[in-house]
């Protein structure tokens, strides 16, 4: 990891730098005004737009800005191991990648069509009662202690279990599965062996589950993928596996990061807790506002031809970091962007991206956030950070609290 301190964010930014992880907002503010398309040589080099308008333009320009590689250096490495491993199992996988997130039209179009129905707003509503039950029992587990880690003990426990249930894993697996996922996405960030080992466990389990589903067909996400057809043809099994893995990669640390950030906000803003308890009907707009203010995800694009954007010359193969979080704090688009206004009336945020790659899991993520906040407040109406300075943040492309001790009376 680069340890050279950043002295000029405009030409040498580092999304893994300590100060960026902890408090990127003033950095974005400076870049947005002084150098709206910043540049760096770090992590193989990239450009980084920070204005809403530029993010939207680039996201829509899928010909010049391809999604074939949505990750920058560090984060991408371990998934190559995964691909190698998958390749051994099934050569076809090498050509499959993780569509739709890493593909452009036309592959993107059908891969996305396949994935959308099980994640539609109406489909995910079916999982609300069990998500609520899960959140309630997590809070019950620590409420009497008067303290918990809002990230480790709560936020990180929710999305893996919801996804496991959607995929159709047996209930008794959900604890083990959650530990693998945390080993892969969280603890593994600083422990490559654990990361690889966890990835292997997840992968082998997925593979076994697909086999098991073939023998005992069921109505769950794996079952849906195995029986779905694209242009009258069944979906190749390698694609089923790739899709399940994508859902795990795209749908878990993203969601636990936004749940974690929401709890972080509430722990410091008792007036907002009070308001949500007294006016529960504000919850949907509050979720959108928290998504806007604490957007977790920065994706990437690859420039497909030598070109120019907003006066910046770009070469084929250059990367562009899609800083949706910075766009969502652009004062050109949002009044008082740094204020969290739970009933903000005009909030066309792009936390889930914009254009054809709009997050396929957005409805699931919103449902989980809403339920997680409601169930936390139901038993913990007031709380605070034990030590705001001690909170640590994951940085890079998915931002959220990693360690966050919260206490309550």
């Amino acid at each position: 990891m680069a340890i050279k301190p950043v002295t000029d964010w405009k030409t040498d930014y580092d999304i893994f730098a300590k100060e960026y992880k902890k408090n990127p907002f003033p950095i974005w503010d400076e870049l947005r005004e002084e150098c709206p398309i910043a540049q760096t040589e770090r992590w193989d080099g990239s450009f980084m737009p920070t204005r809403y308008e530029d993010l939207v333009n680039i996201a829509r320009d899928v010909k010049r800005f391809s999604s074939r590689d949505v990750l920058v250096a560090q984060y991408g490495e371990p998934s190559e191991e995964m691909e190698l491993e998958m390749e051994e199992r099934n050569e076809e996988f090498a050509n499959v990648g993780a569509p739709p997130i890493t593909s452009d039209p036309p592959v993107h179009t059908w891969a996305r069509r396949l994935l959308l129905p099980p994640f539609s707003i109406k489909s995910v509503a079916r999982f609300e009662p069990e998500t609520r039950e899960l959140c309630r029992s997590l809070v019950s587990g620590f409420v009497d202690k008067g303290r918990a880690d809002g990230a480790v003990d709560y936020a990180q426990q929710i999305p893996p279990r919801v996804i496991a249930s959607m995929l159709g894993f047996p209930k008794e697996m959900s604890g083990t599965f959650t530990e693998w996922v945390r080993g892969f996405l969280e603890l593994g960030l600083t422990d490559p062996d654990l990361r690889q080992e966890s990835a292997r466990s997840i992968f082998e389990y997925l593979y076994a589950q697909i086999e098991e589903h073939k023998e005992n067909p069921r109505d769950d996400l794996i079952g849906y993928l195995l029986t779905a057809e694209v242009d009258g043809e069944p979906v190749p099994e390698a694609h089923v596996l790739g899709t399940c893995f994508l859902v795990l990669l795209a749908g878990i640390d993203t969601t636990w990061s936004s749940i974690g950030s929401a709890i972080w906000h509430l722990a410091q803003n008792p007036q907002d807790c009070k308001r949500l308890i007294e006016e529960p009907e504000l919850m949907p707009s509050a979720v959108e506002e928290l998504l806007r203010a604490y957007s977790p995800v920065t994706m990437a694009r690859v420039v497909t031809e030598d070109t120019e954007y907003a006066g910046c010359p770009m070469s084929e193969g250059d990367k562009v970091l899609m800083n949706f979080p910075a766009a969502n704090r652009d004062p050109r688009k949002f009044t008082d962007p740094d204020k969290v206004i739970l009933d903000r009336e005009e909030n066309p945020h792009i936390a889930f991206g914009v254009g054809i790659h709009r997050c396929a899991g957005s409805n699931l993520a919103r449902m989980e956030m809403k339920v997680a906040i409601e169930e936390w407040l139901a038993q913990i109406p007031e709380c605070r950070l034990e030590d705001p300075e001690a909170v640590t943040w994951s940085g890079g492309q998915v931002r959220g609290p990693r360690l966050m001790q919260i206490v309550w009376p």
Partner: protein
Amino acid sequence: MVGRPGARPALDADSVAVMRVRVDAEKCQGHNRCFARSPELFDVDELGNAHELNDGVVPPELEDEARIAVKNCPEIAISISEEAD
């Protein structure tokens, strides 16, 4: 609405304007913000694509909701028109 001459007096100070919403299917990417907030005005299909309900006619008490839907769609896919009934 055109085609109903005589239903109301012709355009004058007293005429009632009818508000309509319309989703541009080419632009909509299925964020579902409109449906989540105003299911009285919009519906979505299983791919998330939204469409207006009831020919887009907005009852007077939902006019503010329709304006809010326009302002919250990240794809700028929703438009409003007002014409004399």
